[in-house]
């Protein structure tokens, strides 16, 4: 992958590297040529790595004190909060860490959407990313069940019942998932096991995600292919490392604000009531990061079709590299796409909002329109736009618009666009 051959300077290093080329890998990672115009939206990859490691480390520690049993889980979480040294801190980091993880992943995904990072030759990076996102949702859901509060229990009931929508085998699958006739102790213990497993699957996929990224190299705000290495690139270390580091510090301030000042604002008060299979809380809502999909589920009046719509809303993203027919990557040079992009952002935010509201009256109507638009964006707007849109000519290199000589003077003048 590295353009030049690397030889360690020390004799010991050379001896080791000839047998296991770890130093070559380290050298590739530090010298990795990166487009020099990457903005702060590109720092979320590093931030997400931080989030994953934070969740794994705090999760391991919590698992030392948590008891996965329907009779003891709720109390063991309170035990962590009250008795375990710094237990409150570790649990609040883990619980809010999930939200921070999703905040970062949504920014990361929408950055891709804006700058066309999912397009050829980066489709595999994108699809691995979508699989990671799906696994993140699974891990978040499973983890939310573990404290065995009312929201845990009923969230688990509702989500596992989604499978009962499958014709013929649905009920059997649900019983199999539960290990009984309702969500109960067997469900809890297997959820704990899977919650423990998934982060390591994600870790493996992250390695593939980065590996696939290092083949074509990073996309960039201009969205053009660049020669690597060239005067359009800088080495990853120290340039990107320090920029990522700064962005991570800013991110950690937001993270710390939630952990220390309002640790429960993203949760639900009902989850501090122990699970009761006889009473459903009056208003069940998933965590904020799943609300848009929840709104899509509820906007369809039919059970099976609702489940299909919700799953398609996520899986349609995997087909995005082929649904978007435009050859131009960056929205900077796509005046119409840029507008539709922001409409999509608004649409998803609206779906998130109505997902948190009761499914009736005006909210239901809005949810239905927003759901229809969501699919319209991917299935109609994007394919058509690629053929119809008059794009702005793209510069030939990253330095060109800044140093002059660009075929497009308007882009040169509006430097803030790039």
């Amino acid at each position: 992958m590295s353009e030049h051959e690397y030889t360690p300077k020390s004799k010991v290093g050379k001896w080791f590297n000839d047998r296991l080329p770890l130093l070559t890998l380290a050298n590739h990672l530090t010298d990795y040529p990166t487009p020099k115009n990457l903005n702060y939206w590109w720092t979320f990859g590093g931030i997400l790595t931080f989030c994953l490691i934070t969740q794994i480390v705090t999760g391991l520690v919590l698992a030392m004190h948590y008891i996965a049993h329907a009779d003891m889980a709720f109390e063991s979480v309170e035990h962590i909060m009250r008795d375990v040294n710094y237990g409150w801190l570790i649990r609040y980091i883990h619980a809010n860490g999930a939200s921070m993880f999703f905040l970062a992943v949504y920014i990361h995904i929408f950055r891709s959407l804006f700058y066309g990072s999912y397009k050829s030759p980066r489709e595999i990076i994108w699809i691995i990313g979508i699989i990671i996102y799906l696994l993140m949702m699974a891990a978040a859901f499973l983890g939310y069940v573990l404290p065995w509060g009312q929201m845990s229990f009923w969230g688990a009931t509702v989500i596992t019942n989604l499978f009962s929508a499958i014709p013929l085998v649905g009920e059997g699958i649900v019983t199999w998932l539960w290990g009984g006739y309702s969500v109960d102790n067997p469900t809890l213990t297997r959820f704990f096991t899977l919650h423990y497993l998934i982060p390591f699957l994600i870790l493996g996929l992250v390695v593939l995600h980065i590996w696939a990224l290092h083949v074509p190299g990073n996309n960039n705000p201009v969205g053009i292919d660049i020669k690597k290495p060239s005067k359009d690139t800088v080495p990853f270390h120290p340039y990107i490392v320090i920029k990522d580091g700064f962005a991570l510090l800013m991110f950690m301030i937001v993270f710390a604000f939630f952990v220390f000042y309002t640790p429960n604002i993203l949760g639900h008060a009902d989850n501090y009531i122990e699970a009761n299979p006889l009473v459903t809380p009056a208003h069940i809502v998933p965590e904020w990061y799943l609300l848009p999909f929840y709104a899509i589920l509820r906007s369809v009046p039919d059970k099976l079709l609702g489940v299909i719509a919700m799953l398609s809303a996520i899986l349609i993203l995997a087909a995005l590299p082929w649904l978007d027919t435009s050859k131009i990557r960056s929205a900077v040079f796509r005046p119409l796409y840029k507008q539709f992009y922001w409409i999509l952002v608004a649409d998803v935010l609206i779906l998130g909002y109505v997902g948190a509201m009761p499914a009736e009256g005006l909210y239901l109507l809005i949810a239905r329109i927003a759901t229809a638009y969501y699919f319209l964006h991917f299935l109609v707007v994007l394919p058509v736009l690629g053929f119809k849109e008059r794009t702005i000519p793209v510069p030939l290199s990253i330095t060109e618009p800044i140093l002059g000589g660009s075929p497009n003077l308007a882009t040169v003048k509006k430097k803030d666009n790039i």
Partner: protein
Amino acid sequence: MAEKKTNRRDFLFTATYAVGAVGVGAVVWPMIDQMNPDASVKALASTEVDVSAVTPGKTITVLWRGKPVFIRRRTEDEIAEAKSVSLKDLKHPEKDEDRAKNPEWLVMLGVCTHLGCVPLDQKGDYNGWFCPCHGSHYDISGRIRKGPAPTNMEIPEYKFVDANTIKIG
């Protein structure tokens, strides 16, 4: 190129794959089946309930197989209402007589057939049950009338052991 003939080695490959596939299946199945309800869960399959304290117009909720079961002693008006509904108005047509063999007693799983929440008693547009999760309305016979639930609330197997005791399961 000469036409490829099936030889001894091809047969050995096919036979090896076939035996290997059976072996993998034999190992995978226990791994999958271990997640199904175990013997101790199945052992709790029936429960007896004393209903002598339930007066007309009241519902009690009991736990059976980890799920709530509603036992409602219906009033004369409610029975009349449940019987008067035309089958054409029902999403999942079922006669009230088929759901409540003894019309005074309605015994059903208190589980919304949409996504498994517990509906609330004497709520909703049909004076039966209302599921707060996604807005399904059930009538006084537990039949789905409005909302996303596909079917009526399920009737479990039950029988009256004596005048005051119901055995569910």
